[in-house]
C-alpha cells in the first residue's frame, strides 16, 4: 500500500521539473559523485598524491638512515608506527617515500605509453590502409610479449633506475594505448562531422588533432587512469624481482622483496607494503571505473 501512495505523490510533476531533474541526475560530476566506489577511489588517489608530494614533510625519519640498534621492530613500537626493517630504517618513512616512487613511475610511464600509443593509434586509425596494417602488425608483435616480460627485458637491457623503469613500463603499455586510440579513430574518421570539416578545408593534422581527438578522448582518459593502476603493479613486480628501483632507495616493491625474507618471524615487513600497493591500485582502478561509468555506461567492454 505504501508504494502506491508514493507513486501518486510522485505523479504530479510537471515536464519542466522532470527535465530539470534529469539534467541534474545526468551531469558528469553528479554521476561520478553518486557512485560511492568512485568517490572512495578518488579519496585514496588524493591521499596518495599528497603522500607523494609532501613525503619529506610527512615522514618522521630519513627513509635511508640506518639505525642498527633498533632493527626489526614490530609495528606500534614507540616512535616507529610501522616498525623498522632489518637495517633499522623506519618503515613508515620508507612507505611514504615509496609512494613518491610508485606514483612518479606509474604516472610517468602512463604518459610515455599514452603519448607514443596515441601517435601510433592516430596514424593507424586516421590513415588506414597500408599505414594501418604495418603499424598494427608491429603493435601485434609487441603485444605478443607478456607485458611484465617485456618490461623485465627492457629494464635488464636499459639498466636500473627510475627513468629506465618509466621508459620500460611506458613502452610495454604502448600496444594497449595504440589499440584503443586506433579503434576510436577508425570509427570517428568516417563520421559526418569529419566529412563536414573536410569539405570546409581542414588540414589532415587539424582534422585529426583538433576535431577527432576531443571526441576520442574519454576512453583515453579512462584507459590512462586504469593504466596507472597496472603500472603500479608492474613497478612493484619489477622491484620485487630485484630490477628497477634498487635499495636503499625505497619503493614498495623492493620493501616487499626485503620483507619477504623475514616472513617467518616479522611478517609485517611483507604485509604492510603489500597493503599499500593494493590500496594504490584499488584507488586508481575505482577512479578509472567511476570515470568510465559517468562518461558513458555503455563503454564497459
Amino acid at each position, binding site marked *: 500500500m505504501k508504494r502506491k501512495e508514493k507513486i501518486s505523490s510522485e505523479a504530479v510533476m510537471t515536464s519542466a521539473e522532470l527535465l530539470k531533474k534529469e539534467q541534474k541526475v545526468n551531469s558528469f560530476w553528479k554521476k561520478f559523485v553518486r557512485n560511492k*566506489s568512485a568517490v572512495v577511489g578518488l579519496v585514496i588517489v588524493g591521499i596518495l598524491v599528497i603522500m607523494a608530494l609532501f613525503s619529506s614533510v610527512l615522514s618522521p625519519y630519513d627513509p635511508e638512515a640506518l639505525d642498527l640498534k633498533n632493527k626489526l621492530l614490530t609495528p606500534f613500537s614507540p616512535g616507529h608506527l610501522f616498525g623498522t626493517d632489518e637495517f633499522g630504517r623506519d618503515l613508515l618513512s620508507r612507505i611514504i617515500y615509496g609512494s613518491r616512487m610508485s606514483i612518479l613511475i606509474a604516472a610517468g610511464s602512463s604518459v610515455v605509453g599514452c603519448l607514443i600509443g596515441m601517435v601510433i593509434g592516430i596514424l593507424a586509425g586516421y590513415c588506414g590502409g597500408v599505414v594501418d596494417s604495418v603499424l598494427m*602488425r*608491429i603493435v*601485434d*608483435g*609487441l*603485444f*605478443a*610479449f*607478456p*607485458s*611484465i*616480460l*617485456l618490461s*623485465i*627485458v627492457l629494464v*635488464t*637491457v636499459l*639498466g636500473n633506475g627510475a627513468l629506465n623503469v618509466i621508459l620500460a613500463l611506458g613502452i610495454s603499455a604502448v600496444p594497449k594505448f595504440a589499440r584503443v586510440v586506433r579503434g576510436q579513430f577508425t570509427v570517428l574518421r568516417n563520421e559526418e562531422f569529419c566529412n563536414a570539416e573536410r569539405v570546409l578545408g581542414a588540414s589532415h593534422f587539424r582534422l585529426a588533432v583538433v576535431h577527432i581527438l576531443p571526441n576520442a578522448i574519454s576512453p583515453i582518459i579512462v584507459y590512462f587512469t586504469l593504466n596507472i*593502476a597496472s603500472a603500479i*603493479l608492474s613497478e*612493484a*613486480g619489477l622491484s*620485487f*624481482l*630485484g*630490477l628497477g628501483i634498487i635499495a636503499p632507495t625505497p619503493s614498495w616493491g623492493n620493501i*616487499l622483496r626485503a620483507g*619477504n625474507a623475514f*616472513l*617467518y618471524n616479522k*611478517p609485517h615487513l*611483507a*604485509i604492510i607494503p*603489500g597493503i599499500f*600497493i*593494493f590500496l594504490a*591500485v*584499488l584507488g586508481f*582502478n*575505482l577512479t578509472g571505473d567511476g570515470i568510465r561509468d559517468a562518461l558513458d555506461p555503455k563503454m*564497459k*567492454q
Partner: protein
Amino acid sequence: MIRLIWKRLLQLIPTVLIVLSVTFVITRIIPGNPASVLAGPEADPRLIAELEAKMGLDKSIPEQFLIYVSDIFKGDFGTSLNYNEPVFQLILSRIPKTLMITFTGLIVALILGTLLGTVSALRQNSWIDHFCTVFSLLGASLPVFWIGIMSIFLFSVKLGWLPTMGMGSIQNGLWDILSHMLLPCLCLSLAPMATFARTTRSSMLDTVNNDYIRALRARGLKERKVIWKHAFKNALPPIISVLGVQLGICFSGAILTENIFSWPGMGTMISTAINTRDYALIQGAILTLAVVNVAVSLIMDIIYMLINPKIKI
C-alpha cells in the same frame, strides 16, 4: 573456413618477424660486447676477434639477423652461460612446468569466473552480485606476488597445511605434486578469474536483454536452458577474446609466482638468468613465451570462428 584460417596464419608471419626482431635487437643493445663477455675480462684481443668471427659478430647487421633467424628455426637458441647447456634444451625441460600451472590456473579461473559472472548477472543487485563486483575489483587490484607471499604465510607458516617450496616429486604420489601446485595455481587464477567474472557478467547482461531471450521464455523453455544453453552461447565471444589476453597475463603472473614458490619453471629460470646476465637464456625464454602466446591467440581465434555459425566450415 579453411581460407580464413590460412589468412590468419599469413598474418602471423609479420607478428613472428617483429617478435624475432625485438629479441634480436635486445642482444645488440646489451651493454658490452658478447664476445668479450664470453672471453672474460682481460682476455687477449685476438681471442675476442676469433670469438667474434665464430659468433658471426663481424658480419653486417642484416646478415647477423638472417643467421639468428635461421638458427632459431634450426632449434639453435645458443648456449646458456650459466648452465653451460643449449638454451633450447633448458627451455624444453622448463616450459612444461610453467604451462602446467598457467593452464591449470587459467582453466580454474575460466570455470569459476564465468560461473560467478553468470550467476551475478542473473541476480542483479543480490548479495552474490555485490560479491562478484567486490571480487572483480580485488582480483584486479591485488598484486599476485603479495597474494603468494600471504598465502605462504597463512597456509604454510601459520597453519602448516601445505608445502611452500618447489614442485614435489611424483615418486611421493600425485598428492605431493598437487599440494605443491595448489597455492601457485590459486594465486595465478585470481586475477584472470576476476576478469572472467566481470566480462561474463556484462556480456550476460547484454545478452539476457535481447528479444530472443524473451522469446525463448515466451515459448516456455526451462529457465535453466534459456540461460545456460542459449544466453551463455551468445555471451561466449567476448569471454573467448578475453581468454586469449589472459594467458599473457598468466605468464606475467607466473614469472613472479614461480619465484615466490620456487616453482622450477620458466619464471625462476628467467630471474636467475637476469641476475647472472645470461642473455642467451633470457632471449630464448622470452622468445618462447611470446611464441606460445601467439599460438594460443591463434587457437582462440579459430575457436571464435568455430562458434560463429555465420562462418561455414
